């Protein structure tokens, strides 16, 4: 007779011997090994990505028309630099570099959450019209209502949220279908981009230049006034999202199985959509509709950590992509004042094409 190896299930024996204790022990060892390997991999990937972010941040603070040594940058950061370095680092470079890191992280998590939730690699805020909603609202605010500065960012964030609500309302019939959500979203993006173009054709050249950032996404001249609301929004939404990641991993087994596990599927989905859209809205309000960061961050992170929801890694990948792109945009030879959205577009467009071709072949992306 074999020993019962603890645990509640399957309960009182009625004639059948329990699983041998040594097999349970072997299974326990295998579970431990597998979980340990997962944790180590997560830690390793996280450390490498975090180091990359810090490295890019350091480069962004020291490189430019006014080159600084690492010591000078550090001095400026702790408030002991000489006047010029202090000004360049704290007022010019730091807000822009921080905006790239934080907006990149927000885009990355937003895309990763929506992609997992809707089970579709195309379900990223820049593809399904959420960023376009922010752009349209911002352009109307600048050229139609004559707003500028922070109020424009607020209107942009509201535009993103309103667009997401409209898409959800149109795409939800009974149950939320990822496929329908993406299709409706792509339609909404086309419509909203048409709004942007229409408003711009009616605008004066100088006004249009101000509104341009809302078409392509740019961090040129980003100052603390744009970074502070971004930091506040991200400070609330990013931790919320990492906590909600638990629900996201539950939903990964499918709606029915997740409900069977005691997850409140409808409520969890709603919460996750709201947080993801909020992140995209905050990031777009600060950086404009930078394309492809949200699209690529999740898939890259999930490739590094297969089978995990990988939200923290997606945040770091998004930060790396946007920071690196913005460095290229700032320092590309012969192309002064290049908007970062152009750089991410050049890198991201081939990826999108590849995704669509692959989806057409095996049908996974709808």
């Amino acid at each position, binding site marked *: 007779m074999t020993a019962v190896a*603890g645990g509640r299930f399957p309960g009182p024996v*009625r004639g059948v011997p329990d699983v041998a204790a040594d097999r349970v*022990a072997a299974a326990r060892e295998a579970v431990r*090994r597998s979980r340990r390997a997962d944790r180590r991999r997560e830690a390793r990937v996280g450390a490498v990505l975090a180091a990359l972010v810090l490295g890019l941040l350091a480069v962004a603070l020291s490189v430019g028309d006014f080159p600084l040594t690492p010591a000078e940058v550090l001095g400026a950061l702790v408030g002991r630099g000489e006047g010029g370095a202090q000004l360049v680092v704290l007022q010019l470079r730091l807000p822009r570099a921080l905006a790239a890191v934080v907006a990149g992280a927000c885009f990355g998590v937003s895309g990763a959450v929506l992609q997992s939730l809707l089970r579709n690699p195309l379900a990223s805020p820049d593809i399904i019209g959420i960023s376009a909603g922010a752009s349209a609202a911002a352009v109307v605010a600048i050229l139609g209502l004559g707003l500028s500065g922070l109020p424009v960012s607020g209107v942009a964030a509201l535009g993103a949220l309103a667009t997401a609500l409209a898409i959800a309302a149109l795409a939800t019939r009974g149950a939320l279908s990822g496929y329908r959500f993406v299709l409706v979203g792509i339609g909404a993006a086309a419509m909203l981009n048409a709004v942007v173009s229409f408003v711009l054709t009616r605008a004066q050249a100088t006004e249009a230049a101000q509104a341009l950032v809302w078409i392509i996404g740019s961090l040129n001249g980003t100052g603390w006034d744009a970074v502070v609301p971004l930091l506040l929004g991200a400070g609330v939404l990013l931790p919320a999202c990492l906590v909600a990641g638990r629900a996201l991993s539950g939903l990964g087994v499918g709606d029915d199985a997740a409900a*069977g596990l005691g997850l409140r599927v409808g409520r969890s989905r709603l919460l996750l959509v709201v947080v993801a859209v909020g992140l995209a809205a905050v990031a777009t309000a600060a950086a404009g509709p930078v394309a492809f960061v949200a699209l690529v961050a999740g898939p890259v992170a999930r490739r590094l950590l297969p089978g995990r929801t990988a939200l923290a890694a997606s945040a770091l990948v998004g930060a790396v992509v946007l920071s690196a792109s913005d460095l290229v945009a700032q320092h590309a030879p012969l192309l002064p004042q290049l908007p970062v959205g152009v750089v991410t577009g050049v890198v991201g467009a081939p990826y999108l094409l590849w995704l669509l071709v692959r989806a057409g072949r095996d049908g996974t992306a709808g």
Partner: protein
Amino acid sequence: MTAERSLVVQGLSLSYDDREVVHDLSLTVPPGRVTVIVGANACGKSTLLRGIARLLAPTSGAVLLDGRAVHEMPTREVAEVLGILPQSPAAPGGISVADLVGRGRYPHQGWLRRWTHQDETAVARALAWTGTEDLADRSVDELSGGQRQRVWIAMALAQETDLLLLDEPTTFLDLAHQVEVLDLLTDLNHRGATVVMVLHDLNLACRYADHVVAMRDGAVVAEGRPSDVITPETVRAVYGLECQVVPDPVCGTPMVVPLGRHHGGVVAPETSAT
């Protein structure tokens, strides 16, 4: 330890949008037994299972778990007692077996209480039970259909529920793997779990069920012991198929031999019982 749970379906009606699929259905699931729901395609058997597992809200009637309506109970509380394995569930790409089975522990964890020794024990037992411990760090994508089904069952087992509902746990499996999965569920039942499942194969249903529920058009046509329920009359009523029923040479349970337009009337009913 495992308690025998009472599960009673009372005048249950279930709809998708405006289409009513299950009509005023009542059923008492015998505790500690294996109940198998059979019926033609689209007769509402999967819908009934989803309704019992509170994945679908009733338009009228109720499902009572230990006397309480499941749709009014906290979903977490239901999940600690009643597990469901849906038909062909989808695993996230690249997920490892240990990770997937570990997600069965969801109802036992909280926002703060994360992975514990108990969780580890439950997962280890589920893996050992289903003979999947050697697959623990493999990716679910790489597994064969039979292995994958056993892993999903392991996830349901890790949930440690007294009641287990399964929607066609043998679909896409070859005969050997079908028998393997059903034997496993029988072992489980012998340790006290109440099992309710939808099966397509009538002969396997007869062999493994203590209680058979035959459905047609969202209603119960007949229920009871397989030998009482599975008769040529019931099969005709449920599937519209003529057949002969002979004793299974191995266990004596009813075995359905279908007739068809090309094969009928050769074997006389009297000589069929070999």
